[in-house]
């Protein structure tokens, strides 16, 4: 049970954070490859989000307003999990379009919980940091420190 790596992709498909926690889980890629991976995943995710839900014929704006409340359909989540023989990639998209990709062992449990905690740390130590500029690469000591100690705790369990 190991968490291998974390990648954060901004809403334009740019790589803003990339950290490997466990040596030997995944092959090391060059920075350029990681950038390509982020961009490609972003594209594939956008396409999968369009595949479904299929629009229901006959359901138009009138029926929505006649219901009395403005209901917005849930945004399609797109690609969530990608699994191979040796690793599992879980993707979490925030409401603002930031993607968190967590690479783990195939037997890893409670990835949702881990993801949630990572997201919480991001909102605390990145978003509340006065020196962070939106959409730019994440360089926050505090985030790094808390993230590493949290993942180390999981990996040593």
């Amino acid at each position: 049970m190991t968490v291998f790596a974390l990648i954060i992709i901004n809403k334009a498909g740019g790589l803003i954070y990339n950290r490997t926690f466990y040596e030997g889980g995944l092959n090391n890629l060059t920075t350029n490859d990681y950038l390509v991976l982020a961009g490609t995943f972003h594209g594939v995710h956008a396409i999968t989000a369009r595949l479904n839900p299929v629009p229901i014929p006959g359901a138009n704006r009138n029926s929505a307003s006649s219901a009395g409340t403005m209901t917005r359909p849930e945004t399609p989540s797109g690609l969530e999990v990608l699994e191979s023989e040796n690793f599992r990639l879980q993707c979490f998209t925030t409401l603002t379009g930031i993607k968190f990709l967590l690479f783990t062992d195939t037997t890893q449990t409670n990835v949702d919980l881990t993801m949630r905690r990572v997201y919480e740390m991001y909102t605390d130590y990145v978003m509340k940091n006065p020196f962070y500029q939106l959409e730019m690469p994440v360089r926050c000591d505090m985030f790094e420190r808390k993230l590493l100690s949290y993942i180390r705790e999981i990996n040593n369990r």
Partner: protein
Amino acid sequence: MSQPRPPNGPSGAGTNPSVVLPKETSSSHNTTLRYPSNGKTIYHRHLSRSKTAELSQASFAYLFSEMVTYAQRRVTGIQDLEKRLNTQGHPLGLKLLDLLLIREPPRSQSRPLNIITLLHFIKINLWQHLFGRQADRLEKSSDPNALDEYMIIDNEPLVNAYVSVPKEMSQLNCAAFVAGIIEGVCDGAVFPAKVTAHSVGSKEEGEMWPGRTVFLVKFQDEVLEREALIGKG
């Protein structure tokens, strides 16, 4: 952080907290001052009312983040930025001194009259009010050339809870804002002083508290002169 809450109706939850302009002011001159519809402003409220009120740390973190961003505009350097943060805190200190003293029981309502009581007031009352706990340590400078310097030490300042200072600005400590509040309290009590915030997290025992901050209080000469005279008499 316990700070006064926004104005609410006098009887609590049931009343409408909406705010409107009184007729006479809106017709006579264009003022942007707004008053609650029941005419009761924050000044009508009892001073002890929000004594135990608390504020969400997240909302404070966002506000403080914006304050730092605001102070960062058009600054010439890190010292200038710290000066601006200090200036933002100063008026708070002046007001908090009065507020906290008036909330004391009548017997201990007098303002601090010597350096030690003033520093204890800051370490205990001010810290308790602002951060919900006392400051971690109070020290006097051991350097014989700097007898006018005192140190208030906080292991993890609340204002820095989510702040990561970039490497190129490593001199900066955003707790300069708190230093400004302390300076305001000292000035208000007529102990004029310069207060600065310094990070000491990376030194000796800093491993455990990477955010440890020392507030260096440097009193002006006349304060020490007066202190010596009082000591004699």
